[in-house]
Structure formats: C-alpha cells, structure tokens
C-alpha cells in the first residue's frame, strides 16, 4: 500500500495557511456577482450611462437647449422622405424636436437627470429609513411602536398621488423652482418611499441585536452608538444595498411619469444649465408629436427601459450574491 505524503523539509514546518487566498465577505460576494451574466450586463449598461452623463458636454454634438429654425421635427438620419426640411441627415443623428433642438444631444443630457433622480432620493431614503429603522429596532418598546405606527401611516398613502399632490402644491414656491423642479421631485419622492427601508432596517436590527456577538460587544464595554453603527449596521448592509438598487429604477420611472404628466422637471431654455432636460420631458414632447415623429417618443422610452432594466438585473444579482445562505 502506498501513500502519498507531503515531504517536510528538514528542520522546517510547512505553514499550510500561507497558501490560502485571502478572501473577505465582500470579496466572495463580488466573485459570485461577476459570474452572473445579467448582473454584469447591468453593470456595463449603468457604467455606460454614468460615463455618458458625466461627459455629456463632450459627447453631445449640440447644446440641447439651442433651437434652430427650419430644422424642426427632422427624422432620424436613416429615415428619408421627399420633404427636404424633414428628411434625415447626419447632422442631427436622431433628428430634432418640434422647436428644432437636437434629439441626440437631449438624450445624452437627459441621462444626467435620470441618474441623479435615481441616486439622490436613495440617499435621502437611506438617511430617513436607516435612522428610523435603527432607532426603532434598537430602542424597542414604546419608541419602536410610535415610529412604526408613523411609518404605517406614511405607507398607507398612495405613493404616486402623494407625490403628484406635493409636486403640484409646491410647484410655484422656491423649493419647486430649485434645480428646474428637481429638488421638489427628490423631496416628494423620498418622503413617501422611505417606509420600506425603515421596515427593512428595523427587521434586521431586531434579529441582529439578539445575536451573541452583540452581547459580546456589550460585554467589552462598547458604547451603544458604536454597537449600532459598527456592529449592527454593517451586518445589515447586504439587504440595504439590494433595496437601494431596486429602488433606483422606481425613482427613474417616477421622474419620467411626473414630468410626463407635467408636474415634474421643467425643461430649461438656459444654455448653461447642466440639467437642461430629462427623458421624462422628452417623453412628453414625443407624445405630443406622436403622429408626425414617433421616434421622438421611441428614443427616451428605450433609454428609460434600458437603464431601469440594468438596475433591476444588478439588484437581482446583488441579492443572490449577498444572500448569506449561499456562503
């Protein structure tokens, strides 16, 4: 009978640990995520749009606010008609809108608004939801009851109706005017959608605070705020990240809907405005001209669809990658 054995060098000890690759929890998660094709495709699309948004002034052939006469409702470059004023040319790659602004440039700048509308409300939602969830879950008892009933009340409002009401009511105030009405969208959207985050975090805290390692941390004399932020919060980060990723497409669509029905972002005519237009306001324009130039509606729809789908795929991938049951 033969056995294979590792030869130990004379006078030396093999340290078997050295050969093991260092891997953290997040490293593992990233490894799993990178094997999920849909999620990787989502990341690629998101990164693409982020780059487009950042480098919009370099990429856009025209300023999207500049109107040119005798160049309105031009068709995309590959569509040709007998009408010389409307047939496609390579000057305006995707054509122009009713007042002669370049659609391609508008789409590029529109990515800025959609992305920012996706991200900023998430920051506000995180700030409100995580704070309330942490406090409610950790304090428990009467404070928990009070905060959660408040959350239930907010949750009971119909979201869209609430946002439309707020957006309409404050449209003419300074809040409504700030950043072409974007600030109002951020606020009205955040103050109605934080409830899910608060419930999620509270649930996490409730189960985590009974864990032995929290008791152990207390036995070491760690102050309560440190326990909350250094011990409990990092443990609930995975579901929070997933929730944020799923929340972004909702906000993007929300902005498009609001702007489409005319209470969202105001298209700017100021040539120096970094956020001159959004895909939502392009949808509105496109819908108005659906009979003469259906393309005006088609392009922003494709963009909104692509971006929301990308975030949804990424969220799905993250949920699978961060699921502790797979570790």
């Amino acid at each position, binding site marked *: 009978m033969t056995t294979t054995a590792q030869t130990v060098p004379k006078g030396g000890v093999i*340290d078997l*640990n050295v050969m093991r690759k*260092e*891997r*953290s*929890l997040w490293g593992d998660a990233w490894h799993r995520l990178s094997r999920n094709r849909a999620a990787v495709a989502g990341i690629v699309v998101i990164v693409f749009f982020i780059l487009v948004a950042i480098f919009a002034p370099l990429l856009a052939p025209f300023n999207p606010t500049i109107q040119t006469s005798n160049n309105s409702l031009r068709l995309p470059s590959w569509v040709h008609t007998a009408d010389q004023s409307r047939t496609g040319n390579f000057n305006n790659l995707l054509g122009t809108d009713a007042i002669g602004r370049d659609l391609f440039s508008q789409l590029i700048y529109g990515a800025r608004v959609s992305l920012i509308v996706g991200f900023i409300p998430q920051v506000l939602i995180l700030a409100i939801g995580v704070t309330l969830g942490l406090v409610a879950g950790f304090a428990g*008892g009467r404070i928990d009851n009070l905060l959660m009933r408040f959350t239930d009340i907010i949750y009971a409002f119909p979201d869209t109706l609430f946002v439309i009401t707020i957006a309409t009511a404050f449209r003419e105030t300074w809040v409504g005017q700030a950043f072409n009405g974007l600030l109002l969208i951020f606020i009205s959207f955040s103050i109605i959608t934080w409830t899910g985050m608060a419930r999620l975090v509270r649930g996490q805290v409730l189960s985590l605070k009974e*864990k*032995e*390692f929290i*008791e*152990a*941390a*207390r*036995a*070491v*004399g*760690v*102050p309560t705020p440190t326990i909350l932020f*250094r*011990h409990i919060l*990092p*443990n609930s*980060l995975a579901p929070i990240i997933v929730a944020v990723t799923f929340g972004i497409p909702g906000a993007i669509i929300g902005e498009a809907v609001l702007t489409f029905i005319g209470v969202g972002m105001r298209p700017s005519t100021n040539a120096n405005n970094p956020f001159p237009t959004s895909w939502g306001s392009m949808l509105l324009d496109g819908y108005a001209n659906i009979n003469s130039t259906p393309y005006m509606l088609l392009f922003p729809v494709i963009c909104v669809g692509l971006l929301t789908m990308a975030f949804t795929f990424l969220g799905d991938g993250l949920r699978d990658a961060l699921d502790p049951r797979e*570790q």
Partner: protein
Amino acid sequence: MPPLLEVRNLKVQFKTQDGVVNAVNDTSFQLERGETLGIVGESGSGKSVTALSLMRLIPNPPGKIAAGSITFDGENLLDYSEEEMRHVRGNRIAMIFQDPMTSLNPVLTIGRQITESLELHMKLTGREAEARAVELLNMVGISSGERRLNDYPHQFSGGMRQRVMIAMGLSCNPELLIADEPTTALDVTIQAQILELINRLKNETGTAVIIITHDLGVVAGMADRVVVMYAGSIVEEGPTSEIFANPRMPYTIGLLRSIPRLDEQDGRKLTPIRGMPPDLINLPAVCPFSPRCDYFVAGKCDQMVPPLRPVGPDHRAACLFDITLETPIPSQESLTEIAEVA
C-alpha cells in the same frame, strides 16, 4: 485585604407573561484575587444569569436585579451609572461566551474586534493596538498573528475562535475573567486545550476566574473553589477537593453519581437525578430539591427552605440533614411519599 468580588443576597427576576421568574434567589458568594471559582448547576439553575448580573448585562426589560449588592474591588457595581459600568466591562471584568461560532461579529475582521476594546479602554492608537493584538494572538497560541488580524471569523475553526475570544477577554488585563461555559460548544480535544490555555494565562496574569459550567470534570481540573447552584440558589459551596471528596448536599451527590468515572472497576450503573428542575415562577417555601431528593423526609424538607449552613471548614451546604456519600439511600416507601407531596 477585602475580596476582589463579593456578591451579597443577589436577587434577579424576569417578568414573563406567566409571572415573575426568580432566576437568582438570595445568592451570596465571594472571590479572592487570583482565585478560580467554579459555578456548576444544570440548565436554568441561574449560573449564566449570575454571571450576566456581575457585568450588569441582564436585559432590562424583562429582567432586573431586584435586590442585593455586587461589591467589586470595594465598590458596589449596582450603584454605577451605565457609563461607569461601560468602563468596567471588558476593562476590569471580561467575559468569554459559550459559543465562539456566534459570539464574533461575522463582518468584522478579528483584528478590528480585538483592537476595539484596546482602543476603548487602554486608549491605544490604531498601530499600538494592532501590535498588542498580535501579541495577544501569539499568547493564546495563534501563530502568524499579523496576517490573521485581517481574517474574518469564518476563516477560523471553533477552537481558534474561542482562542480569539480569550485574547479579546484578556486584552485589557482584567482583574476578573468570567468564562460562561467556554468549552461546551467545542469538541473534547479542543476543550482540553482551551482549559489548559485559560489555566496558563490565569497563572501568568494573576486574573481571577469565574468558570461557569455544567461539566464537573472542567471544575475539577480548573477551580479552587466550587459553588453548586440549584433553582437559582446556592446549595453547596466549598473547596473543590472537599466538594468532590465529601459532598454534603444530595443534589451535589446526585450530580457526582450521574457522571461516568474512568477509575471505576466494576460495571457501576450511572444514577441519573430523576425529575426536572422546578418552575422558578412560583417557588414554594420548601427545599427546592425535595421533589427529586432520595433522602426526602416528609414533614421536614417540605416545611422550609434549608439555609446554607457550615458543614466543615470553609464548606457550606443547604441541607437540613447530615448526608454524605456514605449515607444509604432510604427504601422505596419514602419514594411513594415523595410522589404524594409532589
């Protein structure tokens, strides 16, 4: 010199839906500097609650320390504010928990968790704390500590994690280390290593140790003195050798008879203690062990709670009678009487 720790008439209660659970009743014991005290008893006898009370970590609500005093180094810990108590925890009194698999935070590196108390209590800077953490890891027998600091708990085995817990416990040179069933979750070979480690570190650092366990073998090998708890009260207390050689409380005798011994020649049968521990919600004023006791005497044991009385030098037991290992177990007739009383 006063003892390091003196617990007087400690009473801990938990409010539940069914009523108030008296988890610890009128418990008093003391601990000298550098001494090892073993607290034994079955599940629900109040061992862990006593330990958590010393740290003032009883979850409130539902629990609360209803009465008594815990004098640590001359000061009553029950008078301390939460903030003052925080400086005692981990710094002067440290605790090792039962299950090393769950008592380390899974998303923080080992290094982060060890340095936390160092930065908190010893006011070390990040780099000093890390150096000390490496030192501690080496002390508990984890080699190449520098590299291991960046590892996460899931990269350690159970025994290694318990070593990490011990390193964390000893990081600030506490005067008292409470080990709450430190080996229960580990397999036997690792148990021996961990106990040996605690013993060695105790001798090196002079820390007093309270070791809580239901394993009499652990106590025999570790403790200088033993406290036996039953139904929230101390039923016997004395030096380890005395408790094992000459137990005076039927419960202790029952515990000793129910463990196998390697040096037993003939095929002695193990005699388990029959019945279940009493419900701690409505404890009647009788000997709490009486329904399970082989030596039960009707009209005596069901009349009063036997006080802890001296039965030898530094040896106290809570039994009305002088019962020793040699006392013959009474006949079956008395057993039927027990059934009637119960």
